[in-house]
């Protein structure tokens, strides 16, 4: 199933040239805190009895702390898929915006797509307010 998720998203890298896997350092730096924080959540949830795993349906490799190997893979695969999807959406949206030139690349690039510096935007909004 995890392999299926990865396959469903990996084609975005070569087809849309999102360049996510090429930025492997940025990807690793993103994954590290996510794996740590959500891995701890998972450990705490198992400890608190919120959920448990049916070991008969898992490959059976236990990580330190008692989590199944699949959980670690899950916290790597899902973020990678999310980032691939997000960059693909940004690319397609950006392309459409540039094609139509509705509000111009600068405005849509910053405001809608979330690129650029937020504080600069806040400053310009202040000026408009006055």
């Amino acid at each position, binding site marked *: 199933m995890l392999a299926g998720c990865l396959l469903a998203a990996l084609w975005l890298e070569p087809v849309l040239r999102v360049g996510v896997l090429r930025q492997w350092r940025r990807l690793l730096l993103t994954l590290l805190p996510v794996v740590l924080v959500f891995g701890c959540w998972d450990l705490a949830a198992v400890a608190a009895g919120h959920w448990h795993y049916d070991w008969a349906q898992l490959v059976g490799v236990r990580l330190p702390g008692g989590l199944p190997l699949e959980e670690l893979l899950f916290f790597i695969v899902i973020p990678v*898929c999310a980032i691939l999807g997000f960059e693909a959406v940004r690319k397609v949206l950006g392309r459409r915006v540039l094609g139509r030139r509705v509000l111009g690349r600068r405005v849509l690039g910053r405001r809608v797509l979330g690129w650029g510096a937020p504080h600069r935007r806040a400053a310009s909004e202040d000026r408009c307010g006055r």
Partner: protein
Amino acid sequence: MTYTAAVALGVAGALLLDLLVLRTRLVVGLAFWCTYPIILAFQLAANGVLTGRGVVRYDPAAITGAHLVYAPIEDIGFGFALVLTTLSIWVWLGRRR
């Protein structure tokens, strides 16, 4: 603490990270909301299989009891927090360079 409470905290934490800590403000932009429904659809499908087959089982006392495609409704919040946190850090790291 129940899973429901933990999810509420997790979602609040992710929103805080996006809006105030890293100030990536993805939740007020279009790109995130175009991406999230796609991820949610895949989540419901994959999570539905995992919970439907009983690979992961939940303590009925820790959840509200509302389910969506076999999975407790709380899983939506868990996934949202995971995806928002990931994308927020990713975008923040991209800006720093």
